[in-house]
């Protein structure tokens, strides 16, 4: 029997299409880019199917290929859109702190049980929106760190920044994301009395 006998490309789209698409959407947040990368993944898999070792499952193998494509996409984006001035400015949000470095207006109490928020689709939609509102470099750094779970060394290579810069970028991303959620979710739901 041929080595690739346990692969079944004609079934791939039905079996793994949605899974790979969701995996890509979580990281890219753009339907057409995600669709393209899923398609490229299947094509690359088809071409390289003789190299499938069978040590991993078909789906793990496909996700591995997709991950590479996503990293390449981030690499490419980082080259096309170098750091913006704002990405590294020392103070993430000029209104957060006074001149002595104390909170101008501190974070508000989010109340309730925010740990369960991941079950609320509306909150997740808001989170995605807030993430999409960051500058591309901030959003990509946050995505690589918190969604992909990459370590900072790897992220520095992909985004082509120094480690010191990356710490600033991640700090800014987290602070802006937190502020966005507070404004668009927690303050609103407090207003609703829920």
């Amino acid at each position, binding site marked *: 029997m041929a080595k690739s006998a346990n692969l079944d*490309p*004609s079934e*791939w*789209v039905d079996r793994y*299409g*949605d*899974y790979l*698409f*969701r*995996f890509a*959407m*979580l990281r890219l947040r753009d*339907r057409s880019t995600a*669709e393209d990368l*899923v*398609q490229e993944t*299947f*094509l690359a898999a*088809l*071409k390289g199917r003789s190299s499938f070792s069978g040590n991993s499952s078909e789906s793990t193998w496909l996700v591995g290929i997709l991950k590479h494509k996503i990293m390449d996409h981030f690499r490419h984006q980082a080259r096309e859109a170098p750091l913006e001035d704002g990405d590294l400015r020392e*103070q993430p949000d000029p209104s*957060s*702190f006074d001149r*002595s*470095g*104390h*909170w101008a207006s*501190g*974070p508000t*109490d*989010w109340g309730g049980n*925010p*740990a369960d*928020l*991941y079950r609320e*689709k509306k*909150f*997740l*939609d808001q*989170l*995605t929106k807030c993430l999409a509102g960051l500058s591309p470099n901030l959003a990509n750094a946050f995505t690589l*760190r*918190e*969604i992909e779970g990459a370590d*900072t060394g790897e992220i520095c290579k992909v985004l082509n920044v120094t480690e010191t810069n*990356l*710490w*600033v970028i*991640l*700090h800014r991303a*987290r*602070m802006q*994301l*937190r502020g966005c*959620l507070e404004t668009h979710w927690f303050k609103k739901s407090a207003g609703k009395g829920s």
Partner: protein
Amino acid sequence: MLSCKDVTQLLSEAMDRSLPLGKRIGVRLHLLICKFCARYERQLLQIRETVRRLVETEETAGGTLWEPLSEEARARIRKSLRIS
């Protein structure tokens, strides 16, 4: 003495690397007396935890966040697989 501005940067850094001992102690002392920075840290960790669970849900349980692959995309991908 660390300012709140310094501490927010260090709190974020601490999520990505282990801080040198001096800074770590400075941050912990600050958090004892600063309600806002302590709250800030809690919220950053909550965001991290929420994102982690979101990823888990989307990748294992079958997601709810986005519409699945559209029929057009599905057809396009199938076609491209046949041609090559």
